[in-house]
């Protein structure tokens, strides 16, 4: 009797597995490739990226990595286990892995260029580089466009639940409003959290004056008693489920939350906010430079860049995406605000190590 039951269970599991893999028939072909992707068949490529930061074939989207392998015959090792720029930096610095393509944020690219960890990228070999819009060229971290190719652009704003918040707020001081005690979230990442206070105080987020950092730290301490929590990814659950009223987060992620909870609203604070660019780079440790160029070029293919922009909901620096009539966020007022609605923005620069350890120390006092 027992044996029969076992056999039945096993059969059911096999059928379920088969059905599951059949339903996962992947979308992994790009129809109209513009560049030539031949010549490197059989080689391998190591790509390091953030989790859920590329169109991966879920929900019928394009599986970019699979499509690249299919188009080029290159075997890709795709590593998305690294949680932060700092952890990625540590991995590359330790030399434990040799990575061909990484996608760090602007300030980290600045630091890696300073520490001679990146190779120059020969953009003449990246035919699709022409799609990168001029406003994302020559940015502070790579003024001559030698080391990086922009992938995504994002800005931080404030998300709030309109059933829980009165009126239409427009300032960072919403995060300090005692009316919403225990319903306010802030970042658990020190640099982002400090920035919320710095913008409110009208400071430069890259200042090197310890007294100003002290003031921002005081402001954060003042916020602690009314704070529900300090979060990063947990913000999705909390805002979507109506567990908190106010949270600062990235504009692209707001659009994802909005699609689940329609009560959520968003604004760019009038005092200004943080803007960031994540860009593709080739580390010094790269073993397959040509394949890395090919991968970057592939990411800039119209169809691929569109798939990524749709999947990620971040703003794209790619003119082929932004002007594509089929792009569902074309002209979206949050991702692509017009001149009149563009918020004041500041980039985070790679900060002086002494100031960094100073504010990290302050942070420990705040969260303790």
């Amino acid at each position, binding site marked *: 009797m027992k044996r029969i039951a076992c056999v039945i269970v096993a059969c059911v599991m096999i059928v379920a597995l088969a059905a599951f893999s059949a339903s996962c028939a992947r979308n992994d072909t790009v129809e109209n490739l513009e560049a030539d992707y031949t010549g490197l068949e059989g080689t391998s490529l190591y790509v390091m990226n953030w989790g859920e930061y590329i169109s991966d074939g879920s929900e019928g989207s394009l599986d970019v990595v699979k499509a690249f392998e299919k188009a080029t015959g290159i075997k890709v090792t795709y590593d998305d286990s690294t*949680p*932060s720029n*700092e*952890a990625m*930096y*540590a991995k590359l*610095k330790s030399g434990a892995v040799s990575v061909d393509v990484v996608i760090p944020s602007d300030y980290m690219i600045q630091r890696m260029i300073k520490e001679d960890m990146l190779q120059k990228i020969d953009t003449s070999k990246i035919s699709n580089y022409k799609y990168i819009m001029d406003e994302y060229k020559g940015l502070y971290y790579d003024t001559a466009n030698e080391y990086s190719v922009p992938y995504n652009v994002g800005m931080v704003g404030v998300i709030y639940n309109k*059933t*829980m*918040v*009165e009126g239409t707020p427009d300032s960072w001081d919403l995060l300090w409003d005692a*009316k*919403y*005690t*225990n*319903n306010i979230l802030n970042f*658990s*990442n020190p640099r982002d959290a400090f920035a919320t206070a710095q913008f409110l105080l009208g400071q430069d987020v890259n200042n090197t004056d310890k007294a100003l950092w002290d003031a921002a730290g005081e402001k954060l301490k003042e916020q*602690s*008693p009314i*704070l*529900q*929590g*300090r*979060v990063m990814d*947990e913000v999705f*659950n*909390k805002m979507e*489920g*109506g*567990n*908190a*009223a106010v949270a600062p987060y990235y504009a692209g992620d707001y659009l994802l939350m909005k699609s689940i909870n329609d009560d959520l609203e968003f604004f760019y604070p009038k005092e200004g906010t943080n803007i960031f660019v994540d860009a593709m780079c080739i580390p010094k440790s790269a073993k397959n430079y040509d394949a890395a160029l090919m991968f970057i070029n592939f990411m800039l293919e119209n169809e691929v860049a569109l798939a990524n922009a749709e999947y990620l909901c971040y703003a794209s620096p790619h003119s082929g995406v932004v002007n594509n009539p089929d792009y569902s966020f074309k002209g979206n007022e949050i991702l692509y605000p017009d001149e009149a609605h563009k918020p004041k923005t500041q980039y985070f620069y790679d900060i002086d190590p002494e100031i960094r*350890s100073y504010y*990290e120390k302050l942070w*420990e006092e705040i*969260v*303790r």
Partner: protein
Amino acid sequence: MKRSTNVFLNAPYAVWSAIFVVVPLLIVVVYAFTDAEGSFSTDSIVALWEYRDNFQKSILYSLVATVITLIIAYPFAYALSKTSEKTQRIQMMLVMLPMWMNLLIRTYSWMNILDHNGILNQLLTTVNLRPASFLGAAAAGDLLPSMPLALKPATFLGTPGAVIFGMVYNYLPYMILPIYTVMAKMDGSLVEAARDLGCNGFNVWRRLILPLSMPGVISGITMVFVPSVSTFYISQKLGNGKIMLIGDTIERQMQTLNNYNLGAALSLVLMVMILVSMFIMNRFADSSGEGGIVV
């Protein structure tokens, strides 16, 4: 002859522990006593003093969690050992059942249950019970004037109570298992003999069952206390990022600050603390006439 056989049998584990236990421990020690450039330095050790509150809080929380698990597990294990073999099998499976799921998933689920608009608060609202706060929570000044009544929540997440609850929930099986094992092995005729000789119920427990079950209790205490004191995931998720235990501090030093030296020094203190407490526990077990424990 016998000796050489033993060496032979031990070899695989000896090699394993040399590579994966001893060497990493030595690396931790080396990092703790060097600076970023790799030269000898006691800076990290000196800096530890600043983290004393952090250590105190971790120890306090895990002690409370350990006591609670003991109070829950001991009577349960005793009662269970008295039931029929079939019941014992089923009950043990039920105890183990949650552990088939990943700890991260279980903790994340509790986040959704305990959150402001979580399942528990919704339940309490339906039955018209809204406790203002949960063990040391911020007062219930968190009621928004414009909020629908149904949304006025009790605060669970982000309180010490939630973190301790998470520890108890996750590590309870580690307390039940060793205690149950010694209880089940206990010879029932000893109890009968004690009764025959005129011992009353309480004395049977105090002078017979308690000493005999001590190895299991000590094993259980160690197996709950050690993971509790070093946890970081539970405090991060159920503490809502507001409660930083020593595990969180170590994780932060390693993952975001790239300060391996201080991270190693903190870990070293944690390890020494655990070793000392295990040593004391073992002595305690010896003096009560029972064998030491294996963790």
